[in-house]
């Protein structure tokens, strides 16, 4: 039903856009920290905001709101929904 959108990092998503996490680019360190807080492939995310050009990104995941630094957010690859 949903048409699969192109892959893009969280940082490139638009405000209020939703998508599914597909992959975490980057080493075990980043993957581990993100996984601990619930950012793992397969989860649905909704982007809430970007603070500034290279500022942190806030997202909603499992009804929790998370804030990720820009570098980390750029490593989270998302397939946008429709």
């Amino acid at each position, binding site marked *: 039903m949903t048409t699969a959108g192109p892959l893009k990092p969280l940082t490139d998503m638009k405000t209020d856009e939703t998508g599914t996490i597909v992959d975490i680019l980057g080493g075990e360190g980043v993957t581990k920290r993100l996984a601990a807080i619930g950012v793992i492939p397969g989860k649905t995310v909704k982007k809430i905001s970007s603070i500034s050009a290279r500022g942190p990104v806030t997202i909603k995941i499992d009804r929790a*709101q998370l804030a990720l*630094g820009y570098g980390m957010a750029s490593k989270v690859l998302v397939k946008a929904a429709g």
Partner: protein
Amino acid sequence: MKILLMGNPNVGKSVLFSRLTGVRVISSNYPGTTVGFTRGFLRVRGEKAEIIDVPGSYTLDPSSEAERVAAEMVNTGDVIINVVNATNLERNLYLTLQLLERDIPMVVALNMWDDTRHRGIDIDLNRLEALLGVPVVPTAAIAGQGVRELVDTLPQARRVANPPQSRDERWVRVGQIIDQVQQISHKHHRWFERLEDASVKPLSGFFIAAAVLSLSFLVIRYLGESIIGYGMDPLFEGLWLPVLDRLSAFLGGGGILHDVLIGKKIDGAIDFVQSFGLLSSGLYVPFAMVLPYIVSFYLVLGILEDSGYLPRLAVLMDTAMHRIGLHGFAIIPTLLGLGCNVPAIMATRILESRRERFIAATLVAIAIPCASLQAMIVGLVGGKGWVYLAVVYGTLFLVWVLLGAILNRVLSGLSPELLIEIPPYRLPPWHLLFQKLWMRIWGFLLEAVPIVLAAVLVVNLLYLTHVFSLLADLVAPVVTGVLGLPREAITAIVVGFLRKDVAMGMLALLDLGARQLVVGSVVLAMSFPCIATFVVLLRELGLRDLIKSTAIMLFSAVAVGGLLNAILSQLGIH
């Protein structure tokens, strides 16, 4: 028996701990309030059991000091109470599964249970219990519900010892459990949720931050001033002064005992600020000058903490904070430092790297004046005009920014990025708010008042024995030459090591001009922190980093004080 309270950050472990033990602990609505562990006792079936409030952690593979504490403690427990946030089960069960792999009996407390219904969350308790293999007890710690049932269930704690799984396997399992036990019915956007989103969007977010911070400042100031103007001053002038006048007459109006107890008379009368006796300034400074601001500051801070606003401020500040080598979350220890540097430096444990902790702790110790010192600065420097007050605060802010930027450049390594969970907004639970406020006020009274009295006594004795004049001769070149302060100011700086508020009170005795008072305040704020801060710096940073931090402190205090003196002199300000 040793019971461990474990769970994700900000799920209400500390509130539950208070309920279980009657021990009062500080709780707030942001992840990482508890950085050390607190122990208490409760009775399980008539038997005394020890219970420990373990810092929150998402996983047993640690990435911060607080998580390291949790990971190390897990093996020391006889029973684990895994506190789980019922409104966000899927995020909490990962740690639950990890804990179930340990060979330790466990009970799950499904906390915030009262919050699930209006959020449209329905959890099948029996099914969850069957899938996890341990008892599950719904609780609402803030309201005090389910606590008794939880204690009664402890003897039925079950040892599961599941075979260890990989991270991905655990997440798959979490998904399977959630599918079977949880149903969500869609609820409309609540008013709070709109406000939550608006507080982290660029435009509305900064507008809200500006409004919240200026409102906080105004409330702290007016509440503090009102307590002084309508409460403390009338009390001291109307009730206490007549008593002291009589005592003074009784002691013959002079002599050693008179000077120690009541102090020197200023223009023939007792002056609560300048007389500097144990019963005059020794009581007036802590109770009438500092306490009112302690009350107003911690009331406002408590509301900010419990509403859930602070993590949002951290997100907004992140980009700016990176320039001083910290990420946004470091704003929380910094704000705590405006109250007292001791808990602020302990709170730097929520920062991940050693480098960040060093920068944050050093900046707090040097550039963040505590409430006691600020109350005195506002009282004394403010009397010379608000411009001078602005110069003191402006200088300290500049020092904070510049020193942070320099440390960020000089120290090797990079600071990690921000990664936090932002809690939902919550109306502060008033009973917890006032309990926390009372704990902090009581802590101030217990720790500050005896030291203030001791400091005043020591000052009087040192004056009598002329030790100060020897000391003053020794450092006179720096104090008079570079800082442009009278030699006697050195005594204040030395006393600052005991209590900053008393030290500031001593500066008031010297009949300083505006320039000298400004320079004195800044140097006092930046130079040696008080002894309590010093001890906690040693504990948190270790001896080597403490020496490094102190060297930076001394150098920057003299440099900034000298520069400020030169600039203000150039401007012709005495």
